[in-house]
């Protein structure tokens, strides 16, 4: 690190969350940003506790999201329930492996990867790890960026439900997993938003 490097906190400044104005203010009671009116916080409030709570909720929701059926297809009276994974396997077998890839990455890989990354980040802050802070910050930015793409499956179900309703011939209904899966996506997005990556750096500075 360069000689003159200092953080805003060390100099008694609060970085406005919304407009990035550096404000000189008593840090125990920061008040509002003079430029944009946002509430000022030195760090996101209760970041660790909130993120843990949301991550736990997502871990619970992800179980029914993967075990229960996502879509229920009726063709000529025969009902077939598909979970996320059975849908992926169906596409692999029917030869459209690119669709299988998209759904697998968006609906299985991304949510699990995102949750694992958040748990690793939380643990590393909680155990005051000094391990590769720059890479952990990059991981955090990645989870923020990539989480939204999990919504693909929800949209596919929306479109199928709207389009395929030919009465007894063919109809698709959304299964119960759709709700749980949507909950996983929304809750992990909130979790990523409530985690404050500056904590990764704070614990290192405090320990040095």
């Amino acid at each position, binding site marked *: 690190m360069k000689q003159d490097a200092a953080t805003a906190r060390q100099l008694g400044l609060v970085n406005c969350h919304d407009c990035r104005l550096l404000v000189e203010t008593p840090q125990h009671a920061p008040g509002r940003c003079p430029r944009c009116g946002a509430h000022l916080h030195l760090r996101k409030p209760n970041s660790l506790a909130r993120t843990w709570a949301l991550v736990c909720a997502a871990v619970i929701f992800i179980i029914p999201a993967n075990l229960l059926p996502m879509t229920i297809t009726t063709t000529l009276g025969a009902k077939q329930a598909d979970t996320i994974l059975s849908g992926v396997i169906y596409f692999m077998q029917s030869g459209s492996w690119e669709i299988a890839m998209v759904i697998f990455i968006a609906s299985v890989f991304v949510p699990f990867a995102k949750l694992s990354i958040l748990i690793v980040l939380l643990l590393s802050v909680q155990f005051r790890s000094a391990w590769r802070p720059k890479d952990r910050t990059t991981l955090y930015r990645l989870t923020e960026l990539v989480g939204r793409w999990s919504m693909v499956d929800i949209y596919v179900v929306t479109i199928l439900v*709207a389009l395929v309703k030919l009465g007894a011939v063919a109809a698709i209904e959304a299964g119960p997993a759709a709700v749980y899966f949507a909950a996983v996506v929304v809750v992990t997005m909130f979790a990523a938003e409530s985690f404050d990556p500056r904590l990764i750096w704070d614990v290192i500075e405090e320990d040095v």
Partner: protein
Amino acid sequence: MAPNVTTSNQRRPVDAAGPWGSAGRCRPRVVACPDCDLLNRFPEEYRSTLLCARCGAVLYRRRPNSIDRSLALTFAALVLFLLSNSFPFLAMKSGGFIQETTLLTGIRELWKQGLQGLSLLVLLTCVLVPLAQMLGLLYILAPLKWGRRPAVGAARVFRLVQEVAPWGMMEVFMMGILVALVKLGHMATIVPGVSVYSFGALIFVMAAAFSCLDPHLLWDRLDLRQ
């Protein structure tokens, strides 16, 4: 040693057209990284981007002609958005029977099936949030473009636009359309409608409008302290 920090109270004169452009009256000389809190100084020589020295976050990127470009692109996006929502994006033909769907009928169908929460989520992420973002940007940018005072509550509107940004998911919805297209291709004849093309254009125009925005410049102009 601590850097010499320029805080909110110190301003540069109007004619101080430094290497970082002349747009701002109080262009900050030091910014704190939102990801690691390190203070980064704007170097004297011109650069098009400023990355955090410690964690690599993008702190500043030059956006030439920011207000004009984002305003034009947001107008275009609004037109494409209206187009996308008034025409069907997919039609399914099977045995002389045609089933068309627009974004809104899909949402209504989910609601009728008893999945109100899900249908609200889709409504929010694909219709309301993008619409709010576009209208919000127009509201902020139009007065600035024509040299008026910032609109009433513009700072609050811009904060809102920034905060809802992660929840606008039109590009993800576009991906969903493509997947559904292939998925149903096995079962019936699928005809992509007008709205698929306008939607496809919309996500690029919308992304361009946002990447032309210069938040530093806008916050400078929308300053509540004026």
